């Protein structure tokens, strides 16, 4: 009896030890992250003002702002979304609902999963070769957006497939049993019921793309831009212009990199402030993803 009590005490001690170790590990991660964010905020927060958003970069740190950077980021995201969403969703639907399940689709599936893990600079090189040199899109918003679209395409495809897989087969059978074609089933059921999951995947993809620097630098984004791309709407005929697609650009992460690499301390403050803005953009997107997922989960429970 005494032996057993001893044994139990020892087992419990091990249990307790891991509890302490686990707590410490969790704490180290959290504390570091918190310290990083706190440091960023303490350094950069005072610099954030309307003027900071409305000014171009400048030689004088106190006059420099992120206007061209955030506009560039916004436009790039727009191109990325427009390119990656239709392609990724269509591919995901095809693979789940249309493609026959055989060794070929298995290989495609494995490769898409692998593509999601390819270093982003490789996508940059691909985009440089394809969009800049081959299609001659130049070092433009279009090229940058398409490069990031390639980067998040596997994520969008995988999110689409996951979301579609969550739809029970009984729903498909119910639709087919009424004489629906594949496309009718996809259009009336598969797409509406998987929208939540697909949107969540897209936003998470975009929030990864927004912070990417390597592929954007590779395709030749500029680090110092003191002008905005051509506005997409104008007062003259034909009112809508797509010239902005071919304008040079910069984005938030590049602007931050540019400022950090300067020797003056004041520029580092700018970098911290821009970092806060970028962080907030990402957090907002993630919050949107969580909200959308919550909304759709509430609406459709299988």
């Amino acid at each position: 009896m005494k032996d057993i009590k001893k044994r139990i005490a020892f087992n419990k001690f091990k249990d307790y030890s891991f509890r302490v170790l686990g707590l410490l590990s969790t704490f180290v991660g959290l504390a570091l992250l918190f310290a990083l964010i706190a440091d960023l905020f303490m350094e950069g927060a005072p610099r954030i003002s309307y003027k900071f958003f409305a000014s171009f970069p400048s030689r004088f740190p106190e006059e420099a702002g992120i206007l061209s950077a955030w506009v560039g980021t916004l436009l790039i995201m727009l191109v990325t979304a427009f390119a990656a969403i239709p392609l990724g969703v269509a591919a995901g639907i095809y693979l789940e609902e249309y493609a026959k399940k055989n060794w070929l689709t298995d290989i495609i599936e494995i490769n898409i999963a692998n593509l999601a893990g390819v270093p982003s600079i490789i996508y940059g090189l691909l985009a440089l070769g394809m969009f800049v040199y081959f299609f001659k899109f130049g070092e433009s918003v279009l090229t940058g957006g398409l490069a990031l679209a390639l980067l998040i395409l596997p994520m969008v495809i995988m999110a689409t497939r996951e979301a579609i897989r969550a739809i029970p087969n009984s729903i498909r059978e119910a639709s087919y049993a009424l004489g629906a074609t594949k496309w009718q089933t996809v259009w009336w059921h598969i797409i509406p019921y998987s929208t939540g999951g697909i949107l969540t995947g897209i936003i998470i993809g975009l929030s990864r793309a927004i912070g990417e620097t390597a592929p954007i630098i590779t395709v030749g984004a500029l680090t110092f831009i003191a002008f905005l791309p051509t506005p997409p709407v104008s007062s003259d005929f034909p009112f809508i212009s797509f010239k902005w697609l071919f304008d040079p650009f910069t984005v938030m992460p590049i602007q931050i990199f540019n400022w950090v690499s300067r020797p003056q301390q004041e520029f580092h403050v700018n970098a911290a402030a821009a970092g806060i803005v970028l962080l907030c953009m990402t957090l907002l997107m993630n919050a949107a993803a969580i909200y959308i997922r919550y909304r759709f989960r509430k609406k459709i429970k299988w």
Partner: protein
Amino acid sequence: MTVTISEDLKAESKNLNFYYGALHSLKNVNLPIARRRVTALIGPSGCGKTTFLRCFNRMHDLYPHNRYEGEIIIYPEKLNIISPSVDPIEIRMQISMVFQKPNPFPKSIYENVAYGLRVRGVKKKGLIDEAVEKSLRGSALWDEVKDRLNNSAFDLSGGQQQRLCIARALATDPRILLFDEPTSALDPTATSKIEELIIELKNEVTIIIVTHNMQQAARVSDYTAFMYLGEIIEFDKTDKIFTAPSNKLTEEYITGRFG
């Protein structure tokens, strides 16, 4: 075995064989389906009754490696509905199905019933409204849902959901209605409502029902086929099957000695 009945036929399977890949799961099935009667398929799990039922609206065509041999003829046009030259969609438009578990779409009650018409390209709201009401009345659900047609179908109870699925299947005026163990997921009250409904519906439509529940077969059907290992062992009027089965195996099954 070949069987003949002295009634108008709606359909008839002749030497039907069915294969899931290499698995030969229906063997020379011959069965007449009487017009505007309820034909029940009974038998132990895995005997092929659901497989047989799903041949009637070509559900097997949705999955690879499935193969039919033989004929299922529908009357009066004497069309072999499992012939490869017949489009399964054309068959499914005429032969509806109600599944084992209620499977309404996560849409409004109205949209669930309207779906079959939408698939057929019906756009006129008046026509759809009319069909929705008629089908919901037909499935004895109208009074319970008429004030909340725009609510989600998921708000309904299990039994109501199954009646909604029946309304959905009725909306397109099917020639044959297939029921695949429609009450196996429901409580006794909901079950008896569905059974009453089936008896009611046979005045207008030919019904084939697969059931695990022998009392149910005895209550609702006019004809019963007992299946075992992919074959029809016995087929006859329901009264006859349950009171004086001619096959030993049938007798053992209906008295609960196996299955």
